[in-house]
């Protein structure tokens, strides 16, 4: 509603010389909801958690300032390092797999063919289920002792044991879960493919470019902002993975911490051990780490991401 009023109030034909100041003003009008939200909903809790990172805070009584102790403590915390190992492995394996899958399927499902809507919805279905509690039941049905995978192995004479209870394979089942729900990046890719102006292909065809050439010189470059977006967001999302392990391992990150995602450890410290000061410190370490990785992504992006502007 604000938009309509604002649009109606906008003066006709701005003199170009004043464009810059108008833009400055307009930008702040456009961003008013966000600025209010930042101050009221986002910034305060974030700053609070930054302060808490330097305190001993057990949630029930007042925080007590202890300097950098929480940060010193994590150097010798074996479970912290375990969670770092688990999370890095997970990010490095599941993000490329999931994105590759999503892009491949988006390309396949973008082309005209019968029943596209059915395929698209079908492939998206697992993502709808997301990380609902029912997943715990499903995953046990597939990877448990008498699960589907072991039944299949039994047919060829291999007696398998539970994939969820083996520290070597438990994380793998979560990677499968993540790849299985590739629907979100796929939808974003599909939307991105639709954003590519049709005329580009037409003129390329007139010039006699092959399908492969069109893919390499139109589709990929035009899609890079979306690939970049998916890469950044899926990476951040993977670093923050929580629910998968929370649901499948019942919140423990087991067996033997093999699915102890970083954020699950943050949660355990904060909500189970009531050590919210330490949990906040852990969270801010993660934030700095993700920020660095994102900054590197952005720095590298100028070499491969092409914008229309």
């Amino acid at each position, binding site marked *: *509603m604000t938009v309509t009023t604002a649009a109606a109030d906008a003066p006709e034909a701005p003199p170009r010389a004043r464009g810059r100041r108008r833009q400055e003003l307009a930008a702040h009008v456009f961003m008013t909801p966000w600025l209010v939200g930042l101050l009221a909903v986002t910034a305060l809790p974030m700053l609070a958690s930054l302060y808490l990172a330097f305190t001993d805070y057990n*949630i029930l009584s007042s925080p007590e300032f202890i300097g950098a102790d929480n940060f010193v403590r994590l150097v010798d915390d074996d479970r912290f390092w375990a969670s770092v190992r688990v999370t890095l492995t997970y990010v490095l394996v599941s993000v490329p797999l999931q994105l590759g899958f999503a892009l491949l399927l988006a390309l396949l499902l973008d082309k005209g063919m019968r029943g596209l809507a059915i395929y698209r919805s079908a492939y998206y279905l697992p993502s709808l289920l997301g990380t609902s509690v029912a997943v715990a039941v499903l995953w046990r049905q597939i990877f*448990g*002792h008498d699960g589907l995978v072991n039944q299949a192995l039994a047919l060829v004479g291999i007696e398998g044991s*539970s994939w969820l*209870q*083996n520290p070597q394979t438990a994380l793998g089942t979560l990677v499968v879960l993540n790849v299985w729900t590739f629907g979100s990046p796929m939808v974003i890719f599909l939307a991105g493919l639709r954003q590519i102006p049709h005329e580009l292909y037409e003129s390329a065809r007139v010039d006699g470019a092959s399908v492969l050439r069109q893919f390499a010189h139109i589709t990929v470059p035009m899609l890079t902002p979306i690939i970049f977006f998916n890469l950044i967001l899926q990476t951040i999302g993977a670093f923050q993975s929580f629910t998968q392990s929370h649901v499948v391992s019942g919140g423990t990150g087991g067996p033997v911490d093999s699915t102890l995602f970083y954020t699950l450890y943050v949660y355990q410290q904060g*909500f189970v*051990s009531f050590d919210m000061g330490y949990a906040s410190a852990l969270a801010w370490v993660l934030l700095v780490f993700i920020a660095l990785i994102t900054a590197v992504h952005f720095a590298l992006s100028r070499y491969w991401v092409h914008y229309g502007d």
Partner: protein
Amino acid sequence: MNAVSRRKLFQLSALVGGGLAGSSALSACGGVGGGGDSAGALRYAMWGNNVRQQNYSKAFEEMQAAVPDLQIAMEFADYTAFQERMTTQMAARNVPHVFWVPSPQVMTYYANDLYRDLEGIETLDLSDYSPTDLDGFKLDGKLNTMPFGIFVPVLRYNTTFAEEDGVELPEDGAGWTWDSLAELAKDYSANSSQGRKALSYGAEHDLSFENWLRQRGEQLWTEDGRVGFTQDGLASWIEWWEDLRKAGATTSISEQDGVAPDWPTVGDKILMNFGNSNHIIDDAQQFPDYDFALRHPPVAEDAPEGFQYLYYPRMAVYSGAEDDMVAKAGQVLTYCTSTVEMLKTVGLTMGAPVNPRVAEEIAPSATADEQEMLRIVAEDRAVERKPRYEAPPGSSTWRTVMGRVLEEVTLGSSSISEAASSMIDEVTTAIERAA
């Protein structure tokens, strides 16, 4: 271009407009979200499954009919979610007036002054309890939580299987020891024609572990809030189980889906399992084809007198509750713990009644499984017992730690003594940090 974008615009605003219509409809029906008219209601927070939720809301309706001017707003979630919500509410000091206390947090909540002293609440009727009973309820010498059930550690067995396979468990007494049980378990598992196992792997069960410790003269926690068991005590318990597991007398970790057995998965594969006395009520219902009975766990030959103990689930009144709410809370506590009507509605899934009068009155209408539970709890209650202390602040993760070291042991990545010492170290560090 104009024509095109106008059409787009129209479609888009139709999309958004539909949404706005939806949201204005919602604000029309009584403010955004409606909130409910629960101002002035007594907030009662508890955990459980949907059956318990239904039973309790029915009981609360009956309570509201019986107690004038009482309005109860139930805050319900499953055990984990309940704790997440409670933690958040406590941080904001926006705590329900009456709440169940999760066992690992009993002393943590106490250390942070969340409990209202129950003595002096005139509406709370404690007349059914003996002074000894009341002393047993106290924490740190104060009556600040109200037990509303009793669990004891038990060995549950499937009588249908026992009959089919012609097994008889030794009578209580000199013949019923950990050694004789181990022997029976190995023998049964080796000879079971159906591929049944004698036991599920139960080293993770907290009440049984505590029972083992007390039979050795140790305890789970000391009075001054430290770890009450030795490395030997813990190691001997794990050893007893590892011996059975390696001999194939228990289900494998893989079969039972983790070091803590999943009952729906193992229920029809095992003869016996260690558990809480109250679990028989829910667990038996999942396997209606079988009958179950309870036994006291075996007793070591050199077990000291009074090793038996009662575990109480507790509820508390929030220390920040206003006086009128405290008075209502007293009425609610009385109704919950001292009326047989309450238990008739909600059943006995939270254990045998603490109130001795109610325990007697409920017995005739109890189901067979419930009577089995009542019997075994009454027997433990009748003996003189040494005191038991609750988990100190900071120890709340001890069961998770235990699960993890048991995983290490069963996977062979750590020896039993290493596992025992690393568990004690980790729990001790956590307790010291919280102090």
